[in-house]
């Protein structure tokens, strides 16, 4: 990754995303990226500051993002997270973004912006 800090606000437009919780957190820095739909894998392998790309929308994603101090969660394929997930994310201060892009395309665009899966 280059030296310039990348923030969530830097990827909102290029990735067709919109914040569905905590829009006030869009200035948060993204330090890296991780993609997985298995929560046990995310718990084991993400680093603090990662943006997490997934199709899961159930409430446990919020607990995992909080536990691992992730920068935020991007839910792909136009999936709508559960209402409980949204409420929990608001309470726990986790920014959730949704995108109509499929995961492959979305991650490609994140990579182009300068977010890497390795650091």
């Amino acid at each position, binding site marked *: 990754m280059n030296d310039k800090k990348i923030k969530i606000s830097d990827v909102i437009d290029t990735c067709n995303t919109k914040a569905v919780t905590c829009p006030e957190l869009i200035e948060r820095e993204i330090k890296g990226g991780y993609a997985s739909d*298995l929560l046990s894998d995310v718990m084991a392998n993400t680093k603090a500051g990662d943006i997490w790309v997934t199709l899961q929308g159930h409430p*446990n994603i919020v607990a995992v993002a909080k*536990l691992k101090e992730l920068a935020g969660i991007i839910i792909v394929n136009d999936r709508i997270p559960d209402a409980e997930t949204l409420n929990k994310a608001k309470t726990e201060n986790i920014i959730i973004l949704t995108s109509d892009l499929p995961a492959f395309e979305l991650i490609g665009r994140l990579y182009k912006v300068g977010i890497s899966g390795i650091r």
Partner: protein
Amino acid sequence: MLQCYRADLHIHTCLSPCADLTMSPKRIVAKAEEMKLDIIAVCDHNSAENVRATFNAAKGKDLAVLAGMEVASSEEVHMIALFDTVDAVLTMQKLVYKALMPGENNEELFGQQIVVNEFDEVEAYNNRLLISATTLPLAEIVKQIHLNSGLVIASHIDRETYSIFGQLGFIPDGLNIDALEISPNTTRAQVNIKFPATARYPLVTSSDAHFLEDIGKVTTSFLLAQPTLSEIKMAFSKRDGRNIIMEA
């Protein structure tokens, strides 16, 4: 003589991080009696440390307790393992603990994991990351449960998350599951239409109770000679008159 036994084969205790703290053995047994259940199974996530206490709490009562555990496979498919002895489920627990993803529970985020005795007194707090999954593939879990003379039931197959259809999309060929569980949110008919493969399996309806008031909310009625695991196994294969009694 064959009789009808009402069973709720999927009940969590306060050991499961997501379950209510009131889910203690004495209270679970009392609620099961109130709901006129004949058989219950205690199935915590990746652990069976409250099974013995529940067995003891039900001693002398007209309630059969099965030794269960809800194991999460490497694919994050939840499977109910049922045994007839505490020792058998503890043997399975050893394997599960060895394969459980590392990490400690965070009580604030996931909830407390309380090990209790038969008098509902706190014995210990389990600090494993029980909410997570094991590294055991589905096929290995099925194999190990059967090696320990247990029954395997795929959990809440109609749910999008942590179910065999949600995680895999289908039931792999050769996977020797004994039955499928459907959640209170759906019906046998709906499931058969949505997932035609389910027609080949016995279906049970269980509460997956995480709160006392959910125990026995839905049940499965069996025609059995005794309220035991081997009889339930016979009912799954419709042997010697044993059967699942279908609701109208």
